[in-house]
């Protein structure tokens, strides 16, 4: 862990973050927040729909905008997040919130992978789902919401440790 952090801090990315102007960190931080907001905003709508809110809107109608937005938000958050971490990576060694945040992100991603294997998910566009299938999707939505809320809460707390 500490070797990886030292390597990241000494990488070209770490140098660039520290030495390319006084506003760099602030702007990358802003980008990170926009990425997280895009990810969580779309995930919130999708997960609440999976949990049974707004049943009168078809699931396919919700997933069409929510999935690409969540994926782009995730990509923006990850790339900007690595830059933020590289700025002073060794400062975060031993920060307990880091050890909550990254496993929560990992679980959130695992949940996405598992969801994609569910027949109910694949067939949402072609037929109405049974109540058993809706329950499966509701569980996935609940897990997702929990994972991303945990990741965001722990992420916000990193700076206050």
């Amino acid at each position: 862990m500490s070797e990886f952090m030292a390597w990241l801090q000494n990488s070209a990315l770490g140098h660039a973050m520290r030495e390319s102007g006084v506003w760099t960190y602030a702007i990358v931080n802003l980008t990170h927040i926009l990425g997280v907001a895009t990810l969580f905003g779309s995930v919130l709508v999708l997960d609440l729909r999976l949990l049974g809110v707004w049943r009168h809107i078809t699931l396919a109608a919700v997933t069409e905008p929510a999935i690409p937005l969540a994926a782009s938000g995730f990509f923006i958050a990850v790339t900007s997040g690595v830059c933020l971490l590289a700025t002073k990576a060794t400062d975060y060694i031993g920060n307990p919130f880091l050890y909550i945040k990254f496993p929560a992100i990992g679980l959130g991603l695992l949940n996405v992978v598992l969801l994609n294997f569910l027949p109910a998910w694949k067939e949402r566009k072609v037929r109405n789902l049974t109540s058993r299938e809706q329950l499966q999707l509701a569980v996935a939505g609940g897990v997702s919401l929990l994972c991303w809320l945990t990741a965001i809460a722990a992420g916000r707390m990193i700076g206050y440790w």
Partner: protein
Amino acid sequence: MKVRSNGQVWDITLAPPPRTEAAGLKEGVIPVGAQVTIQGHRNLDPKKFEIKTERVIWKGRTYNVYPDRK
């Protein structure tokens, strides 16, 4: 930025980078090993050797990163 005082190394916490630079305190302006005076507030925890800096004085020049604070 860090300074040594009576053998103790202190962490000098400056203002946010744009404000610090606006006060004239840029990377490399003060050479390593120079003697400086730091004004500010020390960490409330007596075990922590950290100062939240308001002014750095070096060679008679004052870098006032919080000019609005007395």
